[in-house]
């Protein structure tokens, strides 16, 4: 039973990353009509920024949790201003190709300087050790990742669904021209949205640094799984992305316990099943 709970916890952690990343993808797709292939590379950058902050600047984990998303978010906004904005009105596929190119550049540069092996990032002192919950031993850091991710996801949901800013955002997703006519600076909102989505990816990167080590290719394979998550859940609903992300992480964790050979492929197999039964995805609108 101990092993089952341990795998469930791993599943929840992976689910946190799926949720944070697919949430960002959905928000970006809503405003920019671009599937951000660079999302995995920016997740990796988040982890590396945390690593640099600690080892070059002596800035600890807690500050990294705040600073890394901001730094990577600014980098993302520069990308949006210099490149992505020129794709407005073109076929969606060009956005995928452009961001794929950006991902190759970013990952290639990091691989040149850091090879393919992992760099260690220590768990902050406050989150070391573990708790005995009676039925299982819970490492504090892992519990923290799950709870914190959940809070961030719900905060993003609240921001988009319940605040004035979120209302503008949703309106601009539906009809940008009309929203501009009301005097709202839509291009700036698009840039900020991209920054927000990218910042969420970077935050996931910081959270994963002490668990998965910091590697240049840490986001490359992850992003493909997240694509499958997005296909399953659809990108129409924020809450849908969050729930699908966590649920698929848990299912993956269970698979690791009951049938480890399939743990790499279970998400893809589920995607196939969902497509066969309900081609539009679980929450998505037809696209």
């Amino acid at each position, binding site marked *: 039973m101990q092993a089952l709970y341990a795998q469930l916890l791993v599943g929840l952690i992976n689910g946190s990353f799926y949720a944070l990343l697919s949430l960002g993808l959905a928000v970006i797709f809503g405003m920019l009509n671009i599937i951000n292939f660079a999302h995995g590379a920016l997740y990796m950058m988040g982890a590396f920024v945390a690593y640099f902050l600690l080892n070059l600047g002596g800035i600890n984990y807690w500050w990294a949790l705040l600073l890394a998303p901001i730094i990577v978010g600014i980098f993302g906004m520069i990308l949006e201003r210099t490149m992505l904005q020129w794709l407005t009105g073109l076929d969606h596929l060009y956005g995928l190709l*452009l961001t794929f190119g950006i991902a190759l550049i970013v990952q290639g540069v990091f691989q040149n300087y850091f090879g393919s092996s992992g760099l260690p990032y220590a768990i902050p002192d406050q989150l070391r050790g573990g708790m005995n919950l009676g039925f299982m031993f819970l490492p504090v850091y892992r519990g923290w990742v799950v709870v914190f991710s959940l809070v961030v996801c719900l905060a993003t949901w609240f921001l988009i669904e319940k605040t004035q800013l979120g209302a503008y955002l949703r309106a601009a997703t539906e009809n940008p021209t009309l929203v501009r006519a009301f005097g709202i600076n839509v291009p700036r909102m698009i840039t900020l949205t991209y920054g927000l989505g990218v910042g969420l990816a970077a935050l996931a990167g910081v959270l994963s640094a002490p668990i998965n080590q910091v590697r240049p290719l840490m986001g490359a394979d992850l992003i493909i799984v997240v694509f499958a998550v997005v296909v399953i859940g659809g990108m129409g609903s924020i809450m849908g992305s969050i729930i699908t992300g966590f649920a698929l992480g848990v299912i993956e964790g269970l698979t690791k316990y009951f049938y480890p050979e399939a743990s790499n492929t279970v998400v893809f197999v589920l995607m196939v099943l969902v497509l066969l039964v309900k081609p539009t995805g679980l929450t998505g609108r037809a696209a």
Partner: protein
Amino acid sequence: MTTLTDDTLPVTPRAMRDEMIVFAVMALLLASVPFTGVYPFFVMQALCFALLACAFNLLIGYGGLLSFGHAMFLGTAGYCSAHALKVWALPPELGILVGIAAAFALSIVTGYISIRRQGIYFSMITLALSQLLYFIYLQAPFTHGEDGIQGIPQGHMFGVLDLSKPTVLYYVVLVGFLAGFLLIFRIINSPFGEVLKSIRENEQRAISLGYRTDQYKFLAFILSGTLAGFAGALKVFVAQNASLTDVHWTMSGEVVLMTLVGGLGTIFGPVVGAFAIIAMQQYLASFGQWVTVIQGSIFVICVLTFRRGVIGEIAHYFRRSL
């Protein structure tokens, strides 16, 4: 919304004649390679990728479907051909057939699944499916995991053509490439190809005219996947191995890049793009990961400034379809 090729020209007898002339020049140039002292292995490799890119282009350039998983057909056909040649000791022509049959079967299954969604979702689904196959091949015993299938015998094709001789192998690969290329050329200019183009331009309208667009896209997917498998089967004889790199998503990305550089929706573009990218990898091999960075930069530059690709720009300049 601008479609992928916003200025396609109608196919006229004159355009057809131009294309046949270019094809003849290309065939003559390629046929003379063994007399020029150019390294034949490089050209053979490029020909396999050129056929793969042409097959990929059939789907994106004429059907408007961006597959981000075409490596799965290349790799599957490669593994199955290699297994048939090495373990079952089949002659080369049957080995190639086994590879093509495997890619055909795979394209029916994956096409049936992925064609259910359009646009960006289609790309993500094909990418996810090829990643699924990657993990299966990583664990399946017959692929030998990380090592791949190595030391594949080249054998005698039809009992007479000794494929271990580079010149013989070169012409066999060239004939295979030209046959595949002509088939794609024929498909594009057939009534089926015309309907496919109309779906790319305006699917709703094609539906309203009574075409079952899903069936056309499904058939295009099967043709594209099977031809990509043919390229994979030919590649086995050139490289004499079948490995995981051929199934990895980076390979799918390279195929996209080749076609983009040459020109999406052009007939000769994928060939030019494949030669350009393979040549670049050859010459820059010593730079390690910088090759990835350069490839990424080419993607970015192409998308931002050069969406028609090399052949697309030339065709646009001369107002011809090439």
